[in-house]
């Protein structure tokens, strides 16, 4: 059937005629700032827009308004300044934190230490924690019995669903220090490590968590224990989504297991790997504050390796009530994190045409 002349026409199958498409008309109205028409369109469909309102309010109140509080970095004066400058705060919080201007040398050192710890914890997480789920997924693919595989999978997902409190309590108990008064030995895991010669028995006796040298290892190992199994779901799903004909074709070409892995499996899961990597890099600076706080609470002796930006900010807010400086620290963290997301996404888009956002 011939299309008549006119804009916004769509073909209506039921009546076999061309009709005007009211939705497209409204979209054009939006572009032309014809707000009266837009308002009428929204009113006509008000139920749909009403459904959005609770979600928008919740996000506005508890996700966006805290961002406004970040501006405390420019507004709340924690830095003592000459009287002449007191009306203008500007960048003095940022300056005090980054350069230690005035009497803030100590605080600035602690800030940079926390920044370094944040980076190192995420970097090691990327190095050791990221490949683990991929390896697990490849191994799961080897297990041909469905029953055995899903049994194993169920066990490995389990730690993910435990709370941070339960998880850290178990860690604390398993590597707890020995007692000098009763002569009780250290936790069972510390004993095992000591008998394997990985740590000295003295270190075990004094408590692994009291020793700054071991915090990063504890954090990574418990992290892998907690999430590796669950994170392997995505990769395993990508592997089983590869069509069997790809394997058959490769076999006909004489490819052995390793060649199949190189030319069939790896390309098949590459986009998933890239997406997960971007997500991971994007979340690099948002180290789970809950876990760090629960592991190092009241343990000043291990702050040098364990304190991250968010716990640093929390500490100077709660113990010294310097909310301006705390907001500044969080803002620095967020800005760098944001740049990392955008950077990782851009590189991935350029390199492999896969992008998350």
């Amino acid at each position, binding site marked *: 059937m011939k299309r008549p002349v006119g804009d916004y026409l769509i073909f209506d199958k039921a009546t076999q005629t061309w009709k005007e498409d009211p939705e497209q008309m409204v979209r054009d109205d939006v572009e032309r700032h014809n707000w009266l028409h837009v308002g009428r369109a929204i009113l006509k469909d008000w139920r749909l827009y009403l459904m959005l309102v609770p979600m928008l309010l919740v996000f506005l109140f508890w996700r966006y308004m805290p961002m406004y509080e970040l501006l*405390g970095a420019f507004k709340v004066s924690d830095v003592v300044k000459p009287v002449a400058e007191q009306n203008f705060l500007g960048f003095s919080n940022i300056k005090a934190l980054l350069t230690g201007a005035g009497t803030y040398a100590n605080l600035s050192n602690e800030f940079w230490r926390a920044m370094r710890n944040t980076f190192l914890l995420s970097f090691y997480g990327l190095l050791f924690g990221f490949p683990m789920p991929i390896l697990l997924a490849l191994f799961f693919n080897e297990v041909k019995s469905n029953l055995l595989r899903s049994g194993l999978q169920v066990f490995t997902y389990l730690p993910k*669903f435990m709370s941070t409190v339960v998880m850290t*309590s178990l860690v604390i108990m*398993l590597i707890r220090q020995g007692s000098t008064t009763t002569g009780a030995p250290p936790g069972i895991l510390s004993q095992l490590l000591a008998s394997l010669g990985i740590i000295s028995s003295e270190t075990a006796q004094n408590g692994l968590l009291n020793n700054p040298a071991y915090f990063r290892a504890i954090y990574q190992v418990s992290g892998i224990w907690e999430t*590796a199994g669950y994170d392997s*779901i995505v990769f395993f799903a990508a592997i089983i989504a590869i069509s069997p004909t790809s394997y058959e074709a490769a076999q006909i070409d004489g490819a052995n297991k390793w060649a199949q892995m190189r030319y069939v499996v790896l390309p098949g899961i590459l986009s998933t790997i890239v997406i997960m990597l971007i997500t991971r890099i994007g979340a690099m600076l948002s180290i789970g504050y809950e876990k760090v706080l629960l592991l190092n609470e009241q343990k000043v002796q291990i702050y040098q390796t364990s304190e991250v930006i968010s716990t640093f900010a929390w500490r100077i*807010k709660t113990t010294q009530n310097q909310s301006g400086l705390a907001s500044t620290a969080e803002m620095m963290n967020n800005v760098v994190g*944001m740049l990392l997301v955008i950077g990782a996404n851009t590189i991935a888009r350029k390199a492999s045409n896969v992008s998350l956002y």
Partner: protein
Amino acid sequence: MKRRLEISELIFKIFSYLFLTVFALLCLYPFLYAVSASISGRHAVEYQELILFPKNVQFEAFASMFGNNQFWNAYSNTLFLTIYGTVWSLGIAILGGYALSKKRLLFRKAFNFFLVFTMWFSAGIVPQYLNYLATKSVFNSVGIMDDKWLVVIAMGMAAMNIILLRNAFENVPSEIEEAAVVDGATELQVLTKVFIPMSKSTIATVALFFAISRWNGYFWARQMISNSNEQPLQVFIRNQLEQYTDLEQLGGWTANYAPDSVIFALIVCSIIPILIIYPFIQKYFAKGTNAGGVKE
């Protein structure tokens, strides 16, 4: 004809089985240890004599915990937060995800961005806390006085879960929706009679995510709830852990079970409900999780 396995492939296969078995057992071990330690005698626990199986079995640690009113209090507070919190979050997420899944929604891109932006950029705990203090008085003035209710309405919303629901709703064939509209169904009826029944598995997954994050919630409950009788189980466990570590060092412990056993008993009690619902819902994970995130 089936190709014979090369030696290297065989080794890889055996290694896979071994590695997975060991890893799965390691994932399970701390929980088994917790169960054993919670019912073992004092000397065995304090001197780290048990490796896997309980020794000198006692149930007094559990009994002392069940006799503690604070424990039941904490448990019921957790139930409160979990039930109301899940209903609140899931309700909002379903409504929002449904509206966002409609192509005809104006400013759809902007709304999506509003949501997704919170996944890249979070203000951090100090600004969130300051904002909470600021909004608390506002909510108190409109009659929401209870800290528990504030935790329910303020915490636990996640953009990712809404996106999962949105993607599930987008996959419902539009013909079915049109048929319902022709039959005179209103927007709400379309949602409850067509979309929700057709996206059951995703909704179950998302509900589980919400429920578990509520059940496991610790930090914000501790900061936001000022009355210690209203604190949930996770906060209670942590307080007990801190108290008992001190007690042992003081040497003022006379019961015939170790202080650690009480902590382990608490841990066991807090994970049992998760273990009970876990087998029913775990089959939905793979389906639900890989649908999200990739799009937009």
